[in-house]
């Protein structure tokens, strides 16, 4: 039963909420309460802009259990404009169009269903190519 875990981390996962260090202003994601830059306490919530770029990526054709219905999909290391690198799925993009350095933005999407169709729907951040002006 994973419902309690999904529930506890919903804020950071729905909206990319991390922390900012009050001592050196480093931005932390995921939140870990201790600043990796200066080693001091960092518990101030910080809303990341959601903008970043693809740092590295790999396309998954043989997905782990629970993700079968989404395959193939691409997982990327995304370097946020505030500094941290996060691992997340890319969405709304063909794998052949993905490039290192591609600007992306955070969206909240379905990550998977907990168990079968009776299970809880797990939502969280993914990244997509930045929406273009028409």
């Amino acid at each position: 039963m994973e419902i309690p875990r999904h529930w506890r981390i919903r804020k950071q996962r729905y909206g990319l909420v991390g922390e900012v260090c009050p001592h050196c202003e480093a931005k932390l994601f995921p939140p870990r309460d201790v600043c990796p830059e200066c080693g001091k306490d960092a518990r101030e919530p910080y809303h990341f802009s959601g903008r970043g770029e693809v740092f590295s990526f790999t396309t998954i054709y043989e997905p782990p259990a629970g993700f079968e219905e989404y395959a193939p999909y691409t997982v990327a290391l995304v370097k946020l404009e505030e500094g941290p690198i996060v691992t997340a799925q890319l969405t709304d993009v063909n794998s052949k169009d993905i490039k290192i350095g591609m600007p992306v933005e955070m969206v909240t999407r379905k990550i998977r269903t907990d168990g079968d169709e009776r299970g809880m729907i797990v939502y969280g951040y993914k990244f997509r190519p930045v929406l273009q002006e028409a």
Partner: protein
Amino acid sequence: MNQTESQPKDLLLKPNRAVGIVGYGAYVPQYRLPAAEVARIWTDGQAALPIKEKSVPGLDEDVATMSIEAARNAMKRARIPADQLRAIWVGSESHPYAVKPTSTIVAEAIGAAPHIQAGDWEFACKAGTEAMVAAIAFVGSGMANFAMAIGMDTAQGRPGDALEYTAGAGGAAFVFGPAETSLAIVEHTYSFVTDTPDFFRRQYQKYPEHAQRFTGDPAYFKHITNAAQTLLEASGTRPSDYRYAVFHQPNLKFPQKVAAQLGFTKEQIAPGLLVGNIGNTYAGAAIIGLTAILDIAEPGDRILVVSFGSGAGSDAFSILTTDAIRERRDLAPKTKDYIARRMPIDYAQYVRQRGKLTIK
């Protein structure tokens, strides 16, 4: 004889405190299924096409995720902290859960929880405007300073059914607040409702039932016409007093016909008539048209919005833009940006994305 029958002017709904739209945001998924693809599969390509193409949600999208993006866009334009919202109401007929509100997911995702009203609204295609009227009243009564209403759907049609050509995905979110902070003032609203079984879906059924010929005159046209005419008469306005008008759009024909019958021109309805390119977005249909209009409106433009929901009823709104429209609309993506973001898919991909394919 009924002694208490209301005079038309008493029928208008108008809050005590003036209320307006403070922020608005649209969302349309990027996938498009051309109507010609549906015709290719089911009619050898012989069917007359009611629209060009419809929007289809991705595998990882549903009414919750789509509402979150529209809500974020609305908040960018509203420029208020999320904890100032005192309600988030989501109108839809495709909520992801049968029991568990979509609105709490949206509230949490945009940082508006926990000091907030949240609830899901249902009234076929007018669930969104029903939530809007309630949000206007919530602000208008003074109980809240800001309230958000959303209309969003990922509509489904039975494979091969007439609705499969048009049942699209998308919608819009609106933040209502005090008129003096708004980009458009809500002058008044009017709602017209009767018990009409033109379209329905029973519990546990995947696809809706509809009475083909019954959906036109006694349902769509009767309710929209009554709502629009009563609002015009009661407010002493004529179609020429409105710069733009937008009607519920299940296909291209109905809204164009009802607009002409009411005395509105093609030019008045063109900017809000999106169904040809994104399909019928149900609870989102009339109000995403409104977002496209707000994207181009000038200060002082009056806009008529009339929704229609099967079952059946219509909500009509008279909206007047303010000077703030000019600076506020550029703070979030425009509706045309989402319409232009277009990835066509074939029927096979559509079948997969809409869960019509069983893999276990």
